[in-house]
């Protein structure tokens, strides 16, 4: 899936768009697991500026296929093939 980030790319080596193939695993991928995966594999520095506990830091919007993740179940949304996840930061300073 793709994961464009706006403004937060400083934390991801400056790369705005990431096309990612998630490894197969028994449990289905949901956003919660995706965030954990991102923290481990993509975030190069200062994880606390992006992730807070289980979820994204307050002030970071998550769009799944151009729709608000609140309409999709937030962390419980099950990812599907070719899904497009966008993170937009509404904060200042990263």
């Amino acid at each position: 899936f793709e994961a464009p980030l706006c403004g937060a790319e400083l934390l991801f080596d400056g790369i705005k768009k990431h096309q990612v193939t998630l490894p197969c695993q028994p449990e289905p991928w949901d956003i919660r697991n995706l965030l954990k995966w991102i923290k481990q594999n993509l975030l190069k520095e200062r994880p606390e500026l992006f992730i807070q506990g289980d979820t994204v830091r307050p002030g970071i919007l998550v769009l799944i296929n151009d729709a608000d993740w609140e309409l999709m179940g937030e962390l419980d949304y099950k990812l599907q093939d070719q899904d497009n996840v966008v993170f937009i930061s509404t904060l200042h300073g990263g």
Partner: protein
Amino acid sequence: MCQAQEEYGGCDQPQRRPRVSCAQKCMKCKEASPVLVIRVGDAFCKACFREYFVHKFRAMLGKNRAIYPGEKVLLALSGGPASSSMLRQVQEGLSREIAKKLRFIPGIIYVDEGAVCGQSLAEREETLLQMETILQASGFPYHLAHLEEVFDLPSSILQRAPHSPAGPENSYKEAVEGFICQQRREEGGSPSLPERRIQEKLAELSMREAPGTEGLAAPGARLLGAVRTEQLVQLFGSVKTLTAKEELLQTLRNHLILHTARAQGYSKVMMGDSCTRLAVKLLTNLSLGRGASLAVDTGFSDDRHGDVVVVRPMREYSAKEIAFYNHLFGVPTVFTPALDTKALEKASIHRVIERFLFGLQAEFPSTVSTVYRTGEKLSTAPGDADPATGAAEPQHCLLCLCALDTNVEDGSALQAILVSEQLSQQRLPAASPAGRGCCPGAEEQRGCCMNTTAPGADARADFLPLLCYGCRLTIKDTTCLESLPLYVRSEAERRKCRAAMKLEIQEFLLEDEAVNPGES
């Protein structure tokens, strides 16, 4: 909020495969499936959201009636989401063919602050290139300014210009009608007057309007540019706290924008402050001791400069709405690192408040709007006479041009602060602390001038009485006053001399009010 559940039939749009989505339809058209949630549980589909967004902008301008037809308005573009969105709304508003289209003449200003934020010349060039693409695509005349130019500003920036009369309600309608009639007379097939003027302006405008520093281009001016950059870096280097740096940056940026507006004949400046940002600003200003100027700092219109009025048309949009709009409708933005990018959480008051507010908002979605609505209720009071100097009109802060709020009355919080400051100073002067100090404004730190032999302390003591409380805190965190731009220092000098002179001739002045019956 909606929980994810199993399949919902009939929620898909033509191009999309069925996805799990909330059963709720768009709350406006009741037909399409929603793409975002605004406020608490208001789900909108894409088309309705766009309508809502565009309408809000026009309603904001129409409601406040602040912008007269044919007026020149300067849009302050930072490259960030809110100001880019604002630019798009202005473009849309001006391009409509209906009678209700917006009627002012826009220009754009972009201030390059890369030197302060630690960017290299190459990075700044790149950012400028990206910005220029956007600026040129807009079709409006634009001005590129570098923050280094503050060192060449005239001290008239710090003087409040005479206020152009606003005019009563019905004059707005008259102005609009007159404008429409004039347009009809002159038209007859050709592009309307404002658009023609814009095209002319674009043709004659040079690419980079940077008085003083063409710094990044021509080699001769490059040297001057490098000197100024060095000065700027030194100035910000002498500021100890991130909070003070942010405040100073904002102040200087505002001065620069004001200068450009005055020089190019703009009577209004549009800033892209969103609801979220204003809520943060409100609380931050309270923490910084700027409570007295909350109304002008966060209100729709800010007329502290007199002739140029700053308006904030984006103030009812939350950051989320803006982010969604930009993403869904392709509004280009340029990301530039700011002073506090990647700073620690508690590095500055601004960050602390932002984190607090956003964190609260996540749990209680009406937080930001509540803070905002409370701020909306603030309004500016008419200026009171200043009892300390007996002046008929209130004094204004040297840096932020708000009314001075530092009259030390008995029992006021400021008096308490000054007293405790004085008591906690380690080296108390031998001379009695009571009685006026050697500074004209004498409400300030009594022992300060006698404290050290360094001239810096003297200069600071003279400087502080000219500032409002909030600006004083900023300056207190600045170790080297000499690195402040010349216009600030010369205006401070001028005011100090005037105050000293006034004090000398005080007893010969005829007073209007009966405050001092002993004076002749």
